[in-house]
């Protein structure tokens, strides 16, 4: 089972992260990984594909959630261009349709968070029910109340995504290090 994340650190304090010229912060104990999003017609990740940070959040029970503004600015994709998946999520009692897309996870250089391993290609995370896009006051589904959903501050990967690909996630809290293995 190949390693995708190797000794990826997280920190006790706030740290700066950069994506496509936009500076963001990772708060204490947030696990930051680097991802790309593409339409599913792109069976391979194009070279030079944009990548951006996301929080790996084992407390999130969705696959992947992202704000419309981040999807546009960081992935170069408008949410309306992604087809509906035919599944949905309920955020509270608000129905959010999921959208069809590939999530790519970029391997890190051993021991580094924001340095991507140039020797290993990004890994496609096959999401069973697509991704959730909401926030920024945008109506993203047939329920107008989707406008009221507060966007995630940063994109988030949940445990549902890693479960769907049979991943093995190891969190070394003593050393503040993450490792993730995914099947071939």
């Amino acid at each position: 089972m190949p390693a995708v994340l190797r000794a990826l650190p997280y920190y006790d304090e706030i740290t700066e992260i950069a994506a496509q010229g936009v500076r963001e912060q990772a708060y204490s104990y947030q696990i930051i990984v680097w991802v790309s999003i593409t339409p599913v017609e792109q069976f391979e990740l194009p070279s030079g594909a944009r990548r951006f940070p996301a929080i790996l959040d084992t407390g999130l029970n969705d696959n992947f959630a992202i704000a419309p503004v981040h999807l546009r600015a960081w992935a170069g994709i408008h949410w309306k261009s992604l087809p509906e998946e035919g599944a949905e999520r309920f955020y509270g009692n608000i129905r959010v349709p999921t959208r069809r897309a590939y999530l790519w996870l970029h391997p890190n250089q051993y021991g580094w968070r924001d340095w991507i391993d140039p020797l290993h290609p990004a890994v496609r995370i096959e999401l069973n029910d697509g991704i959730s896009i909401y926030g920024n006051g945008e109506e993203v589904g047939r329920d107008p109340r989707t406008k009221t959903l507060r966007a995630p501050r940063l994109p988030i990967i949940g445990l549902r995504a890693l479960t769907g690909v049979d991943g093995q996630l190891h969190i070394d809290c003593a050393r503040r290090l993450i490792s993730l293995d995914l099947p071939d």
Partner: protein
Amino acid sequence: MTNKDDSGQESDTNEFIESDTPERSDPVTPLARSQVAYKAELPELLAHHRGKWVAYADGNRLRLGNSQVELYRHCLSDLGLTHDRFIVRRIMPESSPQIEYTLR
């Protein structure tokens, strides 16, 4: 649209939606028909093909595969289907669509 159940009573075809979810009145789309068919066949799929991927179009099972991308290629490139016609799902136990939504 309605279906008849075993007792001959008419029932909402959107019955695949979780019973504890809010009310809905969407028309039945090809995607929804496929989702209904997938959920109906899920016990049998789990028994024999757990962990594999399956594609449905217009309510009919198309084929099984070893990966999502394999079936997307089949539906999009080989069959020329549009996205509103098919679904691709991994065969695994059904999970709740309810998301823990908290402010971050």
